[in-house]
């Protein structure tokens, strides 16, 4: 009915937070990392704002495609109040219930997956730095 509005709202907040962090963030540290077992190269890690963009892209993309699905099923219309369920009080309460259950679950799962990605990327970065041979 309107479950995509919750991830869309989170996407707005994520984008604002990303912009704020981008302005305050310091340049990432340079580190030497070995690729494919060959010579080590000097590289910079990905800043946190870049990782926050992953979450923003997932939320914006998912919300946009889900919004299209709602248009497909006639749940979004180009005239006020735009959501067909918002026109009828009985449907409105059902819509709000769906937003509170499915919508919140969507936002939570996308965020949980993003946290998982953060953990995996941190682990890969840690391993890459450890694998570097000791310079004499």
């Amino acid at each position, binding site marked *: 009915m309107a479950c995509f509005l919750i991830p869309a709202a989170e996407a707005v907040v994520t984008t604002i937070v990303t912009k704020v962090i981008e302005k305050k963030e310091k340049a990432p540290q340079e580190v030497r990392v070995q690729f494919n077992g060959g010579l080590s190269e000097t590289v910079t890690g990905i800043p946190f704002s870049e990782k926050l963009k992953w979450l923003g*892209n*997932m*939320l914006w993309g*998912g919300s946009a*495609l889900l919004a299209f699905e709602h248009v497909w099923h006639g749940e979004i219309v180009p005239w006020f109040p735009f959501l067909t369920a918002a026109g009828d009080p009985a449907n409105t309460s059902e819509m709000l219930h769906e937003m509170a259950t499915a919508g919140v*679950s969507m936002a939570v*799962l996308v965020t949980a997956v993003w946290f998982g990605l953060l953990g995996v990327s941190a682990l890969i970065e840690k391993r890459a730095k450890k694998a570097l041979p000791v310079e004499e």
Partner: protein
Amino acid sequence: MTLLTTVFAAIICTIIWYATAPKNEMKVSILCWIYWGASIMWFVDAIFEYAELQEEFFYPAPADMLNDFYLGLSVVALGLIIWLVILLIKDPKDVVKAALFKKKS
């Protein structure tokens, strides 16, 4: 079917991204995020639908399946359009720029 179609689109895009990494000149990573985000959301939707329909969830009517597949393909097309617009605006290879400005001979 919509979930399956989107998941397959996400998997294909991720394979293309991995094969062309670390270049990412075509910004395929954006397409990956779009499809994975949608896949996760439709997965949640499917869980709620399963909780409501139980066994019926696995035996949809052929007409509904066809409609869902049609929707899935349309969703994939919309994702591609969004990616194409972002690609042309960001123009990482300066192709649009080169097409708009001609060098003085």
